[in-house]
C-alpha cells in the first residue's frame, strides 16, 4: 500500500501520504483518501509527496478529480515535499496555478 491518509487531531487537516510510484494503479486508494471525508469549510488537504519517486500524467488527472470533488476553485489542497522530478512534472503542467505548492 503506497497511499495512506491521516487526519490531524484538530480535524482540520487531512494529510495524504504518497510513496513509491504515483500512477493509475493507486487510483482507488487515492480516491478513498478523500471520498469518505466530510471536509468542513476550513479543512485543508495536504498531499505529502516525500515518499513518492515517480508520477505520470494519469496521476495529474487524479489530482484534478480530487480538486473537482472538493469544490474546484474553492478546494484547499497543498502539495508538499516534492522531489525535483515530481516538482518538474507538476510545474510543466502549471499545476501551481491550481494547487498550493511549496
Amino acid at each position, binding site marked *: 500500500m503506497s497511499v495512506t491518509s491521516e487526519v490531524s487531531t484538530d480535524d482540520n487537516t487531512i494529510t495524504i501520504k504518497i510513496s513509491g510510484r504515483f500512477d493509475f494503479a493507486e487510483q482507488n486508494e487515492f480516491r478513498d483518501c478523500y471520498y469518505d471525508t466530510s471536509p468542513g469549510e476550513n479543512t485543508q488537504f495536504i498531499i505529502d509527496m516525500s515518499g513518492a519517486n515517480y508520477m*505520470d*500524467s*494519469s496521476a*495529474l*488527472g*487524479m489530482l*484534478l*478529480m480530487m480538486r*473537482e470533488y472538493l469544490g474546484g476553485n474553492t478546494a484547499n489542497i497543498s502539495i508538499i515535499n516534492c522531489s525535483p*522530478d515530481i516538482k518538474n*512534472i507538476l510545474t*510543466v*503542467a*502549471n*499545476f501551481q*496555478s*491550481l494547487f498550493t505548492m511549496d
Partner: protein
Amino acid sequence: MPTVLIADDDIPNRLVLQAILERQGYCVLQADDGVQAVDVFRREHPDLVLMDIKMPNMDGYEATRQIKAMSTDAFIPVIFLTATSDSEGLARCVASGGDDFFTKPYNRILLQARISALLRIRELYNTVQYQRNELDNHQKRFDREKQLAKRLFANIIETGSLGLPYVQSMLSPMSLFSGDILLAAPKPSGGLHVLLGDFTGHGLAAAIGALPVSSVFYGMTAKGYSIAEIVTEINTKLKMILPTDMFLAACVIDLNPGSHTLSVWNGGIPPVVIYGEKEQEITRSLSPRHLPLGIAGDESFNRRVEMIEIRQDDRIYIHSDGITEAANPDGLMFGRQRLEDIFVKNADSAELFNEIRSELIKFQDGGAQQDDMTMIELRYNQQQLEDTVFHDKAQSKRAEQPSSEWDFSMGLSADLLGCFDPLPLLIQSVCDMQGFRGQRQQLYTVFSELFTNALDHGILNLDSTLKGTADGFAKYYMEREVRLSNLADGSIKIYVAHQPNAEGGLLTIRVEDTGSGFDYQENQVSLESNVGHSGRGIQLLNTICEKIEYMGNGNIVEVTYRWR
C-alpha cells in the same frame, strides 16, 4: 433429451441396451454394423455413441475413427462395448478415438453413471467450444475494426504537412493509437502553424480526443485564425468532451516568415528549445506558461502567446515528455540533462535531430517503451517558409459561379477591436460570395495589410521603427497588446465592393480609421518604411493590387484588385 446411438450386430444385446436407456429417458437410434453406424451418425447427430467392436462390413474401431473425424468441432463421446478386458484391445479402443469402454454383461446403474458423466463432459466441452468461438470472432472483429479505425484516424489527422523540407519529426506510439499528436498546417498569410500534443493516457480514448483537435486546428488555420484563437477553441471543445481526469498537454506555434517571429502557446509541454545557428548553442528555452488544454473553463483560460524574434537557420525543437522520460532497462530516465548535452556536444547542427534520435535509442537499449515519444525540429528558412504552398481546403463550394456584383461594409468600434479579429470572417465572406479561384492567400494578404496598418498605426499609433532594433519585435508586440487592451476610442470602417467584367472582376477595398492619418503626398519615403505587421507592407500591396490610393488626411486607403 439426449440421443444415443447403439451400434451392435447382436440384436438381443441391442434390445437390452435400448430398454435400459429408454427407461432413463434417452432417445435411442440403432445400427446393425459400422457402415450403418457412420450413416446414421451423419444423418441424426446423436449426442453419444455405444459401439460394439466386432461387426460385419466395418468394425467398431474404423466406425469410431470416421465418426470422430466427422465431429472435430464438437465432443461426441464414444463408449466401446466389449466382452473382453484384455489391455491390448482396450488400448486399441482409445487409439481409435474411443472415450471409454464398458464390459459385458451390463450393469444398468454403472452404464447409466458412465453415460451421464460423459454427457456432462460433452456439455462442458460444448460450452468452452462455444465461448472460444465467440472470443475468436470478437477478436477478429476487433482487429478488423482497429485496423479500419487506424486508417481513418491517419486520414483525419493527416500529418501531410510534416513532409516539408525544413521539418524533421518522429512520432513513436507505444500502442496502436498514439496519445501524442503532431499537426502542421501552412497559413493563408504564409508561414506555418504546428501543434504538438500529449493526451493523458494512450490508445483509443486518446485517439478519439485527437479528432476534434485536428479538425479545429486545420479548419481555423486555413481560415486565417491566430493560434490564440485556435487554442481557445480547442480548450472549449476539450473541456466539454473530456472527463475531468483527462486533458491535452499541447504546444502550438506560429512561425511567421514575414516578421521573422515565432509565437508560442505552451500548456504542459516541456520547454521549446531554440538552437542558434550563429551561436551554435541553445539561445532560448520557452517554458510552458499555461495549464494543459481541457482543464480551465472559458472564464479562466489564458490564451496569452509569447512572441520572439527568430533568425535564418535557427532551429526550433519541441518534444513530448515521453522523450525525457524514456527509460533504460534499469529504469533510469533519459532526462533533460542528457538531451541538453547533445546540443552542447554537437558539431554539425544539420545532424542534431539524428543525434538526438540515435542517442535516445542507444540509451533505451531495448528497454520497453513506457510512453509515446514525439519530437519535431523546424529550421527557420524564410524563403522555404514563404514558398510553402497553402492548400485552400476551405475553398468555396461556389468556385465556378459567374462573376456578379455585390458590396458590403463593416464597422468596428474600439471595444470590438480589442478582442475580435475580423480578418477570417471577412475572407470567408468574400470567398463565399465570389469563388476567387486559388486567390485566397493573396486576398488574405491584402486584407491583412490594410487592416493591420489601420489598427497598428492609425488607431494604436505604434511606431514601426521599433521593429528595427534587436529585440524590437517583442517590444513592439508587447506594446501593441497593452494599447489594444486599453483602447477606449477609435473605430475602423471596411468597405468591400465587387464589379464583374468579361475576364473576372474588380474588387475594391476601402479601409478608413479614425486616426490622425499622415501626409501621404509629402511623405512617400516614410510611407515605404511604414510597413505593416507582416513586414512586407506597402511594397507587397503594390505588386498584388492594380491601384493604391490614399484619401482624406491619410486615414483612408483604397485598393483595387483585378482578378481573372
